[in-house]
């Protein structure tokens, strides 16, 4: 109980502490704020949408709603990989131009939900190229492991889906 309270207090400091869902892409571990996540579904058939960037795999039917799915590996310019039974689609809700929209992120596998104190979160490292770190909230360090905490609004949110043709 006391621990939880400190966690809450901590989170008010830099606003980053809290519960994260972690998943893996290759050997790297990532985390996404739990509040952004709507659900996690297994891989299903994806309908390709023409004239979109490669990382947009297409659209799926999520209980009657058509939502776009993007492959996170391709979004980060990593090599793609054959889908297996651990491949998942994490459905997140982000701010679109006209209200919130749901988007699926295709990842290798989902790991667990962990609580990260803000004290354990460091600012993203500087690579010299600002574009590399701009969609990273911070680096969570838990038990010697590093989780890259993603800012989903920047990765899949506003601007990513519009005027695709111009950018494609």
């Amino acid at each position, binding site marked *: 109980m006391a621990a939880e309270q400190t966690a809450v207090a901590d989170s008010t400091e830099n606003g980053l502490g809290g519960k994260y869902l972690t998943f893996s892409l290759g050997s790297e571990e990532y985390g996404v704020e739990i509040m952004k996540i709507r659900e996690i579904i297994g891989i299903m*058939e994806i*309908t*390709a*949408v*023409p*004239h*979109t960037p490669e990382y*947009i795999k*297409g*659209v*799926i*039917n999520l*209980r*009657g*709603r*058509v*939502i*776009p799915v993007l492959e996170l590996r391709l979004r980060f310019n990593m*090599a*793609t*990989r*054959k889908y297996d039974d651990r491949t998942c689609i994490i459905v997140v809700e982000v701010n*679109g131009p006209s209200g919130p*929209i*749901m*988007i699926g992120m295709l990842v290798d596998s989902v790991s667990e939900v962990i609580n990260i104190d803000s004290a354990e979160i460091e600012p993203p490292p500087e690579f010299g190229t600002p574009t590399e770190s701009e969609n990273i909230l911070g680096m969570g360090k838990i038990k010697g492991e590093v989780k890259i905490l993603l800012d989903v609004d920047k990765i899949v949110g506003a601007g990513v*889906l*519009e*005027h*695709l*043709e111009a950018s494609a």
Partner: protein
Amino acid sequence: MAEEVNTFDKLLNDLALKIMMVDPGDLSVVGDLILDLENLDSTPDITAKFPNLKQMALDLRVALGKIVMTDIDDSAENFDIVGQCIGLMEEVYRKDDNDPESLASFNNLLSTLSSSSTAPENLKDSPSEEQTDNPPAQSPAPADSTPATEAPDKPVILDTKPESLDFMEDMELLSGFIEETREHLDSIEVNILDLEDNPGDMEIINNIFRPFHTIKGVSGFLNLTNIQALAHSTENLLDDVRNNIRAMDESVIEVVLKVGDCLKLMIDNLQDTIDNGAESYKNYDIANYIRWVKGVQGAETTTEPATATPAADSAAPAQAQESAPSAVTPPPTTAPPSSPPPKSSPAPPAPPNTAAKPKTKAKKVGATIKVDVDKLDGLVNAVGELVIMQTMVRANPHITAIADPKLNKDFGQLFRITSELQKTSMSMRMVPIRQTFQKMIRLVRDLSKKTGKQANLVMEGEETEIDRNMVDSIYDPLVHMMRNSVDHGVQMPEERERLGKPSYGTVSLRAYQKGGYMVIEIEDDGQGLNTEKIKRKALERGLIQESDNLSDHDLNNLVFLPGFSTADQITDVSGRGVGMDVVKKAVEKLRGKVDVMSEPGKGSIFTIRLPLTLAIIDGIIVQVGTERYIIPTIAIRESFRPRREDYKTIKGQGETLLVRGNLIPIIRLYKYFQIEAKCTDPCEAIVVVVESEGKQRAIMVDELLGKQEVVIKNLGGITDITGVAGGTILGDGRVGLILDLAGLVTAKMNYNLDLPAAVSKDSPAIEEVTEPENTADSEKTTEPEQIS
């Protein structure tokens, strides 16, 4: 590039549509026009590509600015000139014309606009009561000497500063009032026009009286003093009519209609105030109106010399006002005028024939509730899902393996229930088209007054239901077509008589459902289209060739092409240089079609065909490789497997298909969408010939899978994909994409064909051999990569 051209196109269209709809005195539309012109002006590349257009937009904007500032009168004539200017701009845009001469002629036109501002105010001595006369825009209220029966102009805006906006305090109440009042005003208009045909029908008079009373009451409660005062005085007038102090005649009808217009304006302004804050509130001067209403009330009472209303002054009506609110008599649905009105009026009891008419005019209206549109859409979506899920469960191999008669029966029952549910939920979004039609009554009435023509409007099928979302979009095209029919179709009474027709022209407005479509027909018994003239003009413009063997029907339908107005005379009503193409575009946006049939001397029938709902589309599902696409059925002309001899390439770059003498370009969908297809030889594939925006294309697909009604969904944030209009959930739960034919037809097919050699006579064999290899190759090469 393509995008910019589209913006021009859109903006110009928009301008054209707005100038058609503008009414003198309606400055808000002028504001919109200016905004559009600004947008046009600021479009990138306009300077480089259309320097003329830029200059024109600038000049026109200045001119419109003057209209707003009342340096130039906002008269109908001036709007005509503006309309012509916009027509010229369209011309310049279409022809890519940078000739300084056209700019000069444009400026000439504009200068006529300025000069007309000096036209004298001729309202006072004009016998006409029409408001289209040059209104002395900001002149003070007419003096008492003004004949009281003269119609005031549009209400003058006293000042835009809110005197007191305490009614803003309860927004919810206010917006409720606005909505309610709009409904009331609509019903008033319909009823008063009805009254024109049945003067003296007490039931109708009551139906007009009551809404005014309600408006007065609620506006008083909300402290909307102007609206209250106006409604109040009109209510008094109607009360007199009701109590037979005054006869229902033309002047009363006129005044009530105009008051309705004025109230509408004020209500619109209120809505504006809610939307944009208190700054946009305008304090209308309604003194003119009230004086007019009182004048009519005091003037020639037919029954008895009105001692209760001496001289058309304020004293008597003011007294009458005192007692009026209490005079809310219960609607005398059955009873003859039993008790004399509470006012001590010298009016004799109504002649029995007026009140005793037991005409059950009242249309039966069921009880209704208002529901949030979002909720409704949610329900419709959920039901759609239910139907799909049910099909999926039914198709599950484990289920189909069960041979249980009970299960089968239950499934049958379930199916019946869900389809019933689907039908009901769909119908909840439908509303009768009556309201839209009823607005046409007023339109035709005003038009015939304006043009001096006599036209009767006959309506049929007002009960026909239409998707709620479509109602607004269909209004403008319908207005345009009605104007067209009355102004160009119906001839002048003398000419009609000379031709042995009744002097009254008849315009019929019909709606009915036919085969999954809603059809609206506008028929007039006028002169019909001048096919010869259309042909001449089309030849002039190079739209057709002399050698084209077009039927009269084909020729007549050329009027829907841009820039096609055969009217010699530009009139106030229509023919402002913008044509029926605007109608066609608007209807096509709703996935509908327009068509005209005409018989010279007998009249014409314009037909609009619309899908019943915007949520569902009737489509053919086609397969290309592993993907399935939906092509809207309404755009499909035919589909077949092409014959080798009909397949022609052009310079090895473009492919076409000869279909009944027409060369139709082929779209290789798989190339354009960059996917793998089974058939890469057009003569092995199926082509679907589609038509959109007047252009035909042959879309190459692997096979046709069937016809299905599908629910249109957006792609969850993915927008602006050329060639894709949206998605839908197919029977197996997967998403299928709906093709956007308008986009496909206009898109540049810049994929690499690389097959001039491949598709010669003996090539199919080669193609067949190479094609599977290709796919196998690609699989082989991609798989290891994916694993690594």
